[in-house]
Every structure is written in C-alpha cells, then in structure tokens.
C-alpha cells in the first residue's frame, strides 16, 4: 500500500512567555498512516492538535521529535520536492487584499513555476471549475466569505497537487456556501483521485466526506478508522422512539439481543439498539404481541457527533 502520509512518534510542544515557562504540549507521540487516494478526516475538540498536525505535514511547522514522510519523501530534507506536489487550503481564507481573484491565482501559479500559456489555461480552468469567473476582476477584499473560500480552494489546485490539506474548509460559511464547498471537495476527490486530508469541527461534514477518521484529543490520537467502525467500537447505538397506546406487560425489551438501553414512560418508550435495521422487526413484533398500538415512531441513527461526544467526555 502506497502511503501519502506516514508519521511516526510525532511530538510538538509550544513554549511561550519571557522565561519560556509556559509549555503547551500540542502533539504527543502521534503516529499515523494515510494511504494514497484516500479522503482522511482529522477531528477533535479545540486544542486537540489537528491544525498543528496538518501544519507539520505542510512543512509550516517543524516537530520536536518524530519522523514525517509525505508522498514517500522525508520532511524536511526533501521539502522542495514535497512542496511541488502538495497544497493547502484553510478556512477563513486570506490572500493579498489588492490583488483580484485572477491575479491571486496567477501569483500562486507563478510560485509553482507555471509559466506562459500553461498558467493562463490553468487559471481559466480554475475560474470555471469554481464558478468564480464573473468575479475574476474583483479585488480580494471586496469578495464575499464564500467566494474567498472558493478562491482558497482554487488556489490549492494551481499545481494539481497529489495531496491536498484542507484546514476547516467550511468554517464561518453559511449552510448554502458550505454545501457548495463540500460538493466541490467531493467532486475533486472523486474525479481527480486527489488524496485529501481534512480537519474539521463539523461532524456531519466529516461523516459525509471522509472515508477514514482520526480522532484527536489533547494532542494524541484517540481513535482511527472508518466512521462506522468507530461507532461500533464505542457501542454507539441507534435510538428508536415509539409512542403507543396500550400497556406493555412483559419486560422483554430489557433483555432482547442488541438492545443497549431501554426506557419506558406511560405512553412512550426509548430503545437504544446496536443496529436498528436488524432489531426493529423484533421490536415491532413485540408491540404487536402486546397488542399495543404504535402511532408514532422515530429512528435516530448515531453519527460522528455521538462519537465526538463519547471521546470528549
């Protein structure tokens, strides 16, 4: 398996204060392997070390200890070769305020040594891809937040990177703009096969985009895997809420296989099961046997937010 990122025993401590006494251990022995072609999410609460990790991978920060390999080459010794093939887009996008959208793209394309007609075609392609051609001549400081973010993503593709780092790409965007950005990212991964490593606070975003998740807390990797595997690992179930008329006599649901939790009120109950698709028929059979009439039923599947809550407890 080819690895896009391989990190071994990474440690980073920030030191602050005049006497350098304030120490913040941002990363503690982080080890991570991200295969080529994957869409990898790094999630965790504030201060978990997500951006620190991403910044080390993008050569913006150097670790105190540990080894970092990006696209098979070691950082920092092969930094120029690596930088040619990676790029970064971050939330709260900021670029040179006086340059227009087109000029910003031209500038960053030039930084990658792209010249002449090739650069012109690349800039035109990106303006088209992100639907920002109509604001191509607008200065950066006059753009809306959503358009700034689109420009940030477009800038990150000027060198056709094999590996793309996205640091909270939809932070601060309204739901519509965030949705469009997510669609653009999804398209990018699907159509170009670009390996994407993304940090986010938005669990629904992580769940809808990422194939694999690394959960970080207090600078350490707490869990790593596919979202559904993480849920299973944490025994996070689906919640079935049933409102009914009648009475339940036998306490069967307490002991039924796959039921993680059962709570009964006068005319409603809440059942937490490992997998609602497997357990619902049995539950419905039970209500039928009890001659209880179900008039309302809701199913809430567990999501990454539950995983997040479980890990941050």
């Amino acid at each position, binding site marked *: 398996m080819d690895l896009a990122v391989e990190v071994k025993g990474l440690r980073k401590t920030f030191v602050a204060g005049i006497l350098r006494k304030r120490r913040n251990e941002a990363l503690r022995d982080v080890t991570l392997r991200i295969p080529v072609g994957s869409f990898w999410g790094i999630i965790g609460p504030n201060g978990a070390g997500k951006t620190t990790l991403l910044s080390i991978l993008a050569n913006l*920060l*150097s670790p105190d200890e540990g080894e970092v390999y990006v696209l098979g080459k070691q950082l920092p010794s092969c930094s120029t070769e690596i*930088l040619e093939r990676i790029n970064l887009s971050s939330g709260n996008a900021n670029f040179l305020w006086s340059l227009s959208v087109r000029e910003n793209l031209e*500038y960053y394309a*030039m*930084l990658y040594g*792209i*010249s002449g007609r090739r650069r012109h075609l690349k800039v035109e392609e990106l303006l088209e891809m992100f639907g920002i051609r109509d604001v191509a001549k607008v200065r950066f400081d006059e753009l809306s937040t959503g358009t700034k973010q689109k420009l940030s993503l477009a800038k990150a593709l000027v060198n056709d990177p094999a590996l793309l780092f996205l640091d909270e790409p939809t932070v601060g965007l309204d739901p519509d703009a965030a949705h469009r950005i997510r669609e653009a990212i999804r398209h990018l991964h699907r159509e170009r096969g670009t390996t994407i490593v993304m940090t986010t606070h938005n669990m629904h975003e992580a769940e809808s985009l990422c194939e694999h998740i690394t959960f970080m807390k207090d600078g350490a990797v707490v869990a790593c895997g596919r979202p559904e595997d993480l849920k299973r690992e944490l025994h996070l179930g689906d919640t079935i809420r049933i409102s009914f008329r009648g009475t339940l006599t036998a306490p069967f649901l307490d002991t039924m296989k796959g039921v993680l939790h059962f709570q009964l009120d006068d005319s409603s109950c809440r059942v937490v099961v490992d997998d609602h698709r497997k357990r619902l028929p049995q539950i419905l059979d039970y209500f039928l046997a009890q001659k209880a009439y179900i008039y309302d039923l809701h199913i809430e599947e567990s999501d990454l937010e539950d995983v997040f809550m479980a890990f941050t407890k």
Partner: protein
Amino acid sequence: MKMYLWHLQSEITKTRAFVFKNWIMTKRNVFTLFEILFWPVVGFLSVGLLAEFASLGEGMRAFILVGIVSMSAVQVCQLDVAYVLLYDIWSKSIKHGFVAPVGLRHLLLGSLTVGIARGITVFVILVGASRWIFGFDFTVPGPGPICLFLSGLFLSAAMVGMLVCILVLLFGHRAEVAAWSLVSLMLLLCGIYYPISILPDWVVAVSQLIPLTYFLEYIRCFYGFDPTFSHVLYKGYAMVAAYLFLETVLMKGAIRHARRTGMLLKLSE
C-alpha cells in the same frame, strides 16, 4: 539541455511572482505612492530649504543634497524588500507563500527588482528637483560612477530589507517597525547630513561597519570632499557582499526558527 531550460524558466517565473506581487500592491495602494512621491519630496525640500536659509556654500549644499537624495532612494528600495514578507503578513497569507516551493533567491531578487525600479524613480525625481530648485547638478560624476554608486545604494537597501525580514520572522509583528526605523538609524551613523569625522570615535567605529558610509564617501569625492577612508568603493562592495551572504544564512535560520516556534502560523492568524 531541455531540462535545464525548463528549470531556468521555472526559476524566472518564481522570481517574477514576487515582482508581480510587489508591483500590483504598489500600484493599488496609496501609501506606496506616497513613499515614492510625497515623503521623499517633502524631506528633500525641507532639507534643501534649510540649506538655503543657513546660506550654506555650494560645497556644503552639495554634501547635504547628496545625502538626502541617497537616503530617500535607499529607504524606498529597502521597503520593497521588506514588503515581500510584510504584505503577506498584513494580509495574513504568509503560510501560503511558505507552502509553495520557492527559495530565498526568488523572494529577494523579485522584491529587489521592484525596489530598484522604485528607488530609481525617487532618485530621478530628486535629482531633477535638485537641479531645478536648487541648481545642484547631481550628474557631475558621470554615468559610470553614478551607476556604481546606485548599485551600492541598492545592495545596501537589500541588506536593510533582509534584516527587517529576519527580525519579523524572529519577533513577529513587534519587529515591523524596523522597516521604517533601521534607515533612520543609518541616517545618524552613515554621515547623511554631516561627515562622520565629527562623530565620537566609538560611533565612527560603528559607522565603519556600514557599507552605505563608504558609498556616500565615494560619490562625495566627485564634489570635492576627501574621503575619510581609502578604497571606499572596494570596501563598500566587499562589506555589502559579506553582509548579504551572512544575512542569507541568518534568514534561512530565521525561517527554520519560525517553523520551530510556530511564528509562520501566528503571522497567518
């Protein structure tokens, strides 16, 4: 051969990126136009008129006008070199520049190119004003010595601009003020308005460590002022070359330091 040409083109394009950035920022921001047209002209007129008021002789007036014209050209040129990082810091986009595969050479050559263009503009404006307003002919030394003098000035400016970049990478926003204050310090030490011989010995020792001192002495020779030191041009060039080399090493170290302390990220926030 094809590979070499491709590599050369890539190098030129990366350098052009910084020319492009500084040039557009200069065109679109009023404060940069003020740096070329307003401050140098105001400074020049103030000093020139003071010389008139003090009824200074032709030689003394030449001494002072050479100083103010040179100072203004150095100030504008060094600002451009410093701006190559400061623009990115002010726009909070510095991390994008450091994620790209560019080297120090691209950054410095690109920004210095715009700096030289702006410095020459200021120089030409002030030389014209010297002749027109105060009847002082700056072109007496001839094109060769003036070119050698200007090269020395612009290399000194690159040296100051690089020092600003190093300080900003080490100390962050707190060091931005160096972009405007370092040249003022040189004004005091290099003999802009007075010969360094009037300074205390220990200050003269410091002045001797600044290449601009020698370039000013060189150009003033043509207006009848005997230099305090021998081989001023050689010393000036040798010194500026040594400092630029040293600063290149220091700047690489400053970038490594900024990566270690997280300064690149702090400056992007």
